[in-house]
């Protein structure tokens, strides 16, 4: 209760201030719509928001899962081979510094703009890096004591990876996933900015904005926020389930 109350109060306060600012300041709805107007639009457009959120959510999810799987495989490979690791880390850091979202138009051409593949690909690439870098660090950070211990047990490389490396790297994986989860939603939404299928939240927001229907645009924005939050919270939940030894400490 004490954890939930301050943010809720803060949120309500912000909404009220916003509403007062808009109504008292006679701010035209096409500049900044009032929360009440957005609320009305959310109710009116709930089916559309839901459909669009499903489309964007599916893209984000596919990208997230695909990117994560690839990142896990790549990290496993890089952690086993010294050469791969040395080449891949600075390279990943460099690629990570690129504005990957701007790749969307190129991917649209390389694949086809009529499918969801390019958008999912952008999401996947955006997800790949935080997961890869974090997981790789986790996989390599095996404590020397553990390493020696497994040697005294005459454990094979595979047993070592399964019993020590992977579980030890789980918290790192989730650190990466937490970053990646909301990034995935943003990437999926913003990638729609550059063309492609027109069924997601990003296209809906821009389309509503093109008609100056800002309350409607913000209704879809709220949908995007909720989608991002859902992804984040689900990741947190998964983390709790997958790393019980971390959670018990808090209580």
């Amino acid at each position, binding site marked *: 209760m004490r954890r939930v109350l301050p943010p809720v109060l803060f949120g309500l306060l912000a909404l009220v201030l916003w509403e007062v600012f808009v109504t008292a*300041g*006679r*701010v*035209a*709805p*096409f*500049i900044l719509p009032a929360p009440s107007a957005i609320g009305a639009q959310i109710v009116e457009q709930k089916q*559309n928001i839901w459909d669009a959120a499903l489309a964007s959510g599916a893209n984000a999810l596919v990208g997230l899962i695909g990117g994560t799987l690839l990142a896990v495989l790549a990290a496993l490979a890089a952690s086993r081979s010294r050469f791969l690791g040395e080449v891949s880390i600075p390279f990943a850091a460099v690629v990570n510094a690129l504005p990957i979202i701007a790749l969307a*138009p190129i991917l*649209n*051409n390389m694949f*086809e*703009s*009529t499918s969801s593949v390019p958008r999912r690909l952008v999401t996947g690439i955006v997800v790949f890096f935080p997961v890869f870098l974090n997981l790789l660090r986790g996989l390599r950070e095996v404590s020397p004591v553990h390493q020696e211990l497994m040697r005294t047990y005459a454990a094979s490389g595979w047993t070592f990876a399964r019993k020590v490396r992977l579980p030890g790297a789980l918290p790192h994986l989730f650190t990466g996933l937490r970053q990646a989860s909301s990034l995935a939603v943003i990437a999926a939404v913003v990638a729609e*900015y*550059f*063309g*492609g*299928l*027109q069924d997601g939240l990003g*296209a*809906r927001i*821009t*389309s509503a*904005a*093109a*008609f*100056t*229907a*800002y309350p409607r645009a913000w209704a879809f924005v709220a949908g995007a926020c909720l989608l991002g939050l859902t992804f984040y919270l689900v990741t947190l939940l998964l983390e709790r389930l997958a790393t019980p030894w971390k959670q018990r400490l808090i209580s």
Partner: protein
Amino acid sequence: GTADTPSTPAPGASGALTPIKLQLQWFYQAQFAGYIAAVDQGFYKEQGLDVELLEGGVDIVPQTVLATGKADYAIAWVPKALASREQGAGITDVGQIFARSGTYQVAWKDSGITKAADLKGKKVGNWGFGNEFELFAGMTKAGLDPSKDVTLVQQQFDMQALLKKEIDAAQAMSYNEYAQLLEAKNPATGQLYTADDFAIIDWKTEGSSMLQDAVWANTEKLNDPNYQAQTVKFLTATIKGWAYCRDNPEKCRDLVVAKGSKLGKSHQLWQMNEVNKLVWPAAGAGIGVIDEAAWKQTVEISQTTKNQTGDTVLKAAPEGPAYTNDYINQAIAQAKAAGVDVTGSAFQPATVTLTEGGA
């Protein structure tokens, strides 16, 4: 607050120029050549106006910029501007510079698509964002249900989807994307594609076209006699600019290129020529007069045609002074008096040869 009304100083009263901001719809290109020319040739200055052109962008909505007082006039398509009006933007169409719509639906010649009805069962590209309603109205008129009878696909900024035959028909502006098709090399022949390779559905002939580029003014400010006078002066100079570009397309092309447009020279000349076709010859009294029938058609399509999400452009008929010919008529009279040909009845489009990449 939004709609403060700063009192507009009488133009040219003290000999100093009145600063004016004009919000364009998009990046500099020949679509806005008339305004660029009027600035460059000093037509606005003659009227005592110091006009600054504001470039557009993906998220810049010209009519909103106008309504919030950050520009004095704006160029916007009629349906989109009407939608903003419905949301409370106080704006009025004071000059319908483009009398005709330039939107095509382009298909491969060998696809057999020549009219809206042929789109049935096809993959149809469109840009969305409010640019799709002519297409939808055309299809509806031809008895197709846009949400069922065709597969709608969002195009991106280029025409590759059509060239790669991912889609069967693509939306294209006559003055821009269509030219891009003709600037591309056919890998089979090593030559550029020609007009013979493509078939065009022109919404003007299908009867579902809507009004496009118009000059919009701030409704509230129009009550101010000073602003009224300034509007007439602005329109007069604008008319001169467009007349200049009609008579000197190459010169205007150079002006646009000099503004830093990244599109090539031959492309800009093509665009200049095509845009001239949308303006000239002007029917009736002359350039910019709003044609009642075309307006009604635009409003009706805006109210009735639904896109995939079931939204229409407008919920109700526009209220209040959505458009007025008062100022454009005065401007035409003044321009005529200054010896400008305001109808361009003798206008003959040129034939422009495009080069690869529009260079």
